[in-house]
């Protein structure tokens, strides 16, 4: 297995370098210098800034420099004196405090809904649950956020007189800070994801439940509980694991919209601020970290397959 992991890692090195190359190219499609300089800038200011930022060098040299001297100690262009690593390490926690509970809650609730719907397949309950899921999927993320913020925080305070959920903000020093600042964004994320996830999980479970070996198990007189636990759910785990593992890197990346609207200083907000501010070191640093996590998660997913399903062999 370790050989497999090592080989996959080596294969992914060119992929990783390719990702960095594409991001560097994409960033340089538009010249960031005039915008960074603001008004009243002269050609002399422009030339100096380009030189200071290292953008006057040939592209391949810039790429080589990124690869050769790449470390997270590089200074952010927009935050002089602040390293990319420091910024990212500070931003990752607020993102995790929202994304992780949202992920766990969404997975558990969606799996629960999927199982109920699959178990009652074809019945009214199944149809109602899936209709609800389709409606939930069809609503835009922004609508969830705007309505959530308005009713979940602002109106709730008006109705109850107590500020249970904050309209925006993030302060870990406050009592019950997680409930106050994070619970509402978490609930919004759950509401957004639950429709898609429950439909997906239901489809997986239903597919497994209708396979021949399940029918055979029932024909052999196996109890319904054992059929579901040993033959349906166990085999349904592979697509579920794939879905869960693919989601994992995005937990670190944070949610741009929810972090922007709720003023949460997480990875999503840090990234969008860096992109809008043309802060190349930040964007490149973020991409490098995210791409690495994504590749590692993919390899881990393959390993998990083998652990869950004896038919899968890593070779």
């Amino acid at each position, binding site marked *: 297995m370790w050989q497999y992991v090592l080989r996959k890692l080596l294969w992914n090195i060119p992929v990783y370098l390719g990702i960095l190359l594409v991001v560097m190219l994409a960033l340089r499609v*538009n*010249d*960031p210098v*005039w*915008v960074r*300089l*603001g*008004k*009243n*800038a*002269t*050609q002399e*200011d*422009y030339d*100096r*800034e380009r030189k*200071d930022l290292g953008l006057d060098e040939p592209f391949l040299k810039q790429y080589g420099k990124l690869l050769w001297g790449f470390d997270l100690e590089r*200074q952010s262009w*927009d*935050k*002089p*004196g*602040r390293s990319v690593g420091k*910024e990212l390490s500070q931003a990752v926690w607020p993102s995790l405090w929202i994304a992780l509970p949202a992920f766990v809650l969404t997975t558990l609730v969606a799996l629960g809904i999927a199982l109920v719907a699959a178990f009652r397949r074809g019945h009214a309950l199944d149809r109602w649950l899936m209709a609800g899921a389709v409606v939930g999927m069809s609503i835009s993320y922004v609508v969830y956020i*705007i309505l959530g*913020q*308005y009713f979940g*925080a*602002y109106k709730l*305070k*008006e109705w109850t007189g107590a*500020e249970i959920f904050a*309209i*925006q*903000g*993030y302060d870990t020093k406050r009592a019950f800070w997680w409930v106050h600042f994070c619970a509402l964004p978490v609930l919004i994320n759950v509401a957004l994801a639950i429709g898609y996830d429950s439909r997906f999980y239901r489809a997986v479970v239903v597919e497994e439940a209708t396979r021949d070996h399940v029918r055979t198990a029932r024909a052999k007189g196996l109890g319904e509980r054992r059929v579901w636990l040993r033959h349906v759910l166990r085999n349904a785990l592979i697509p579920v694991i794939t879905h869960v593992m693919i989601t994992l890197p995005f937990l670190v990346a944070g949610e741009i919209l929810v972090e*922007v*609207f*709720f*003023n*949460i*200083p997480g990875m999503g*907000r*840090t990234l969008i*601020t860096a992109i809008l*501010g*043309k802060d190349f070191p930040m964007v490149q640093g973020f991409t490098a970290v995210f791409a690495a996590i994504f590749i590692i998660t993919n390899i881990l997913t393959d390993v998990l397959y083998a652990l869950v399903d004896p038919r899968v062999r890593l070779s």
Partner: protein
Amino acid sequence: MRIALVILACASLGLAQEKVLRLPIRSDGPKTLDPVRGSTQYEAQVCEQIYETLFQYSYLAETPRLEPLLLEDMPKQQGLVYRFKLKKGVRFHDDPCFPGGKGREVVAKDVFYSWKRMADDDNSPRSWWLYEETIKGFDAYRAAQNKAATFDYDAPVEGLRILNDHEFEVELNMPVYRFFYVLSMFQTAIVPREAAEKYGETFSSHAVGTGPFLLRREEDWQRTKGIVLHRNPNYRDDRFPEGGGDVRHEAAGKRIPFADRIDVTFFSKDQPMWLEWKAGNLDFVQVPAENFEEAYTKRKRTLRKEWEEQGVRSNPVPLLDFIWHCGFNMEDPVVGGYTEEKKALRQAISYAINLDQINDSFYNGINTVYDGMISPGLDGYPPDGHSPAGHRGLDLEKARALLAKAGYPEGKGLPPLEYWTQSGANGPEQTEAVQRDLAAIGVQLKTRLIDFSQLSEAVHEKRAQMFSYAWGSDYPDGENNLALFFGPNGAPGSNCFNYKNAAYDELYRQIRTMSPSPERTELYAKMRDMVLEDCPFVGSMARIRFYLNRPRLKHLRPSETYFNWFKYLDIDPDGK
């Protein structure tokens, strides 16, 4: 019993509740707190609480008027030499960069050091243009020091002379009136050399100034989230102004600042800011365009009754804007040029665009539409916004006649014109409105909807044939806007129209040296009309920002020309 006694003692000692101002900034906040690296109004909003300049704007004056801030009085002038006298007893914030951590007194050499930082390319200065060609020998000093192995801050500059610890002289190349405005801008604020040298790159986030508020710890500034500023306990004895009118202001003579702490929250989206305001968590707010009708009646633009009943007060602030919906690259072979035909083409386009309609449709009709480039409220602004030299629409008959005069009757023979504009906000819809207006006279537009960086690049490289853009004045003087048409400022400089007119340039050189006077205003109007006749842009518009404040916030007179007015704001603890 003991607790009761402690409470009683506190009460009798007057230990009042901490006064906290809760204010919003409508962006991700400043990128730096180093004055020479900053340039945006978001940086000004924070830096002007921490740092101080030689001059400030008078808080209670009806029109912008400068007064001394770190100076004892206004400088004395002898020809091109100005003699400045610093106030005594002004101290920097306490900081470990000083011996014993105690902030020392500000002296004359701090002023020159702070100005010289703008000349040092290693500081990535953003606003050298403020000093350029102004102080005798300063440009030469900058060139020489940036070429030298190390930048020598102690090397002399011909026009900067220290007389003693509190007095210094500045000799200018020529009388430049804007110099005083420049010395009220946060980019020229006074910083201590000890801090700039000790903190180096991190001076951007480790601010040490003389202002009424200070940044206690770097962690108090959470990028993109907010910043907490505390009252400077060593702030000198400064008082609320008396005001010039017959009625003495209720706070006149009281010691400032009033607030113990300012909690600033950065909002990159308007909805959370608006909800926080409605929930009573902010002391003032700028009314977002999409919420305008929630607060004001559309027709009369008066505050709605329910808000008035809550004691909310409305403060409209006219901005020094010059927004044009269609700028022409005067070097372009089709829309540029100065012949009668070329002028007629641009004038035809101007007559065909309905700015009032755009104002109503996209800005709730609250913007000011006017002729020229000089913003409302400044010398040179045309009476009622109308100039006889203007070609403002909508007048389709004139537009068609001029188009025919230009050699394109009903637009025949005129190739589609390239119109570069921003894709954000309601850019596409506004572009459609312009497109529709011009189609009415037979002018076709090929639109290029792009992001701001691409637009900026295209304009600087003279690639944009027609473009929509905007300018916010750096200081309240029409000269700042007239500079946008000064030939030597052509792209990539601020003259993005690449307008060239020798007679205009001559007048600009003249007004640059003049102080406010009826003669200068007359020249401003003459220059404005010269440009309007040549029609290098279709405009103009200026925004009015509406601030709302709750009754608990006292003495608010917001301005966006300067931001050091937070020190005048007080909180009524019993107010809502």
